[in-house]
């Protein structure tokens, strides 16, 4: 029994971090953020070379066949450099949906393409998880979808969309009638507003697959925040060791040191929670939903704390565009709200334990 990453997992983490440092440096992030592009083909191609799009695709369909813990490590690595790339929808949710609820034919048709990165998939599952806003929601009738789905992940420009309808049943659609980018604080990942109007779609077998997607997504968002927050702490510490004020490096002031210590003290246990939530998804399905909820909610809270505190340690310069710190701040802020803010997710956590009367 060992609560630690395996050698393979550490290797995966290291190689991802190294590759992403080259693929997604700050100026590349900036170029993407300032553009209207739906994806960064150079980064996507580089990630495809590492097998990232197929991380969770079974080996028989050309993927690496790894688990959610490996995906969490990838999410953490992507968050660490605020990588402007599809991932959650295309490399996690769509492969999971197909594996859990797709027919053999559907899997054979899509999984190889997703694994190679040739196709990108989006996931439109917000309404049944985070609640419907603005009258959104999709209805299914005889192989056709009608309605709107907001905050669809990796959806703008996708070749395939996994759609959850109002009742929580899953569908595969090649495209929506219209797919608009929803401008949000985080310019490193695109969210879609999808409109369906009698749009053809294939049903996926529905054996609580949406709940598994939700759990996986919650863990991924938590892991992304973990990576981004760790990066912000690292930057704050590095800056505090370098920057001088009043004749001293500011990192020698107790106030600054304690802010950094508080960030570290929050992040270390949170890392263990994220790891375990991902492990449970793979190996302890009874515990998985509760752990996923706690990981999502808790990382949302401490992510906000770290984002704010690391910015404060940087002083005025942290507020500007110069160091680009705000890309991390906003990525953490967006992860917090996506698929339900922490308050809503904690309600689910309570319900999962029978602490809310049905």
């Amino acid at each position, binding site marked *: 029994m060992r609560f630690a990453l395996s050698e393979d997992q550490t290797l995966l983490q290291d190689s991802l971090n190294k590759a992403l440092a080259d693929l997604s440096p700050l100026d590349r992030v900036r170029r993407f953020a300032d553009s209207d592009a739906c994806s960064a083909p150079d980064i996507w191609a580089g990630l495809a070379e590492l097998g990232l799009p197929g991380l969770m695709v079974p080996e028989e369909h050309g993927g690496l066949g790894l688990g959610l813990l490996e995906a969490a490590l990838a999410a953490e690595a992507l968050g660490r450099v605020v990588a402007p790339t599809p991932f959650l929808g295309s490399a996690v949710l769509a492969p999971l949906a197909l594996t859990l609820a797709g027919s053999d034919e559907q899997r054979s048709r899509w999984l190889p393409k997703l694994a190679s990165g040739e196709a990108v998939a989006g996931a439109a599952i917000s309404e049944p998880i985070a609640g*419907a806003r603005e009258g959104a929601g999709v209805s299914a009738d005889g192989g056709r979808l009608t309605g709107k789905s907001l905050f669809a992940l990796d959806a703008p420009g996708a070749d395939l969309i996994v759609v959850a309808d109002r009742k929580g049943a899953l569908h595969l659609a090649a495209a929506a009638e219209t797919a608009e980018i929803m401008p949000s604080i985080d310019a490193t990942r695109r969210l879609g507003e999808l409109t369906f109007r009698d749009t053809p779609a294939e049903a996926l077998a529905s054996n609580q697959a949406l709940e598994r997607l939700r759990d996986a997504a919650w863990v991924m968002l938590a892991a992304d925040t973990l990576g981004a927050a760790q990066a912000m702490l690292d930057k704050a510490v590095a800056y505090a060791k370098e920057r001088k*004020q009043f004749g001293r490096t500011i990192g020698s002031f107790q106030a600054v040191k304690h802010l950094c210590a508080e960030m570290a003290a929050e992040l270390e246990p949170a890392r263990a929670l994220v790891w375990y939530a991902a492990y449970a998804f793979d190996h302890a399905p009874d515990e998985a939903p509760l752990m996923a909820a706690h990981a999502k909610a808790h990382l949302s809270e401490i992510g906000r704390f770290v984002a704010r505190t690391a910015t404060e340690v940087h002083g005025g310069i942290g507020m500007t*565009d110069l160091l680009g710190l705000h890309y991390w701040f906003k990525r953490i802020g967006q992860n917090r709200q996506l698929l339900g803010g922490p308050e809503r997710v904690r309600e689910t956590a309570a319900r999962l334990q029978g602490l809310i009367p049905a």
Partner: protein
Amino acid sequence: MDLTLTPELAAFREEVRGFLAAHADEYEAGAPKDPKAWQKLLIANGYAARTIPKAYGGYGAEPDILKSRIIAEAFIDANAPRGMAGQGISMLVPTLLEVGSEEQKTRWIPPTLNGDILWCQGYSEPGAGSDLASLQTRAVEDGDDFLISGSKIWTSTAAQAQMMFCLVRTEPDKPKHEGISYILFPMDTPGIEVRPLKTMTGHAEFNEVFFTDVRVPKANVVGGRGRGWFVANTTLKHERGMLGDPNATEARLKALIELMASETVDGQRIIDNPVFRDRLMQLQARVFSMKFNGLRTMTDETAGLARMIVKLQGCELNHQVAALAIDALGELGILYHDGPHLRAKGNWQRNYMFDLGLIIGGGTAQIQKNIISERGLGMPREPKAVEA
């Protein structure tokens, strides 16, 4: 505690209300139709530049905190625009009144008040930050002039301003607080370059300003050569006080309550969610506290500490109000820039970020806590570190 108005003050309130009603066609949605004309009208009636002597283009009234407050409230109620603000009017003018020469006062105050001259402030530097007094921008003597070289940061309105009031180091050999002068010069003087400084909100609320041998007459120093640190500090206090304005916070809380009462998730109003409602009530108690604290600082001479905490607490509270709005909006809370689902033009997110900037700017929260503990509570200063 006597919060009822005297008959005199009640009459004054009617007067202000009457003025605003009579001129209601000169403003719209909180903005004047002709800003300069509006400014002149306000000065003429004592609703702007109220306590500044007539000789310098003001209205010439005695200072009266209560009348000021009545004016402020009447303008808020009517959603009428106040007079021009800006750093020239709120920081330079009080400085000139206090330490400027007669020539400086008559030359600069009137056109500043009536909006003909817009100023920007050159205090902070990239290398200095919280340690403002360590500024490096140099003014080297050259006959009757100084030649200024260096750079400034966090300069708002630098691109629009005609003039700058600026802190420069004129005596490099003196201790750091004693070698600084406060000087005025036109922004079109050769050798000045302005570069916009974009912040996390995506907007360039500030600028960097670079100086290369900018020639400025020595006569433009205000308050005496080498006295700039002390000259600037009198007005910095004004700025710090402004940064936690409780009226603005109260208005934001009102907007938040309206948001929570009107928005729904799955058809349920957000205000009906007990967890969000509880947070709202916590913030409302703080908003009231800051409001009454503000009233107290204006009329209670024992309120020294109460004044000192306004910036720290007020900016934090604004940030928390914005945070609750974002959280209450759920996924909608992350929208920004534009789009059909954006609420309040994205101002909740913008405030959330900009207010964090205000927590940091104008004296970081850490510096504020130093001030409160040392000046407010009489605790010892940080001992001087042994030089490494």
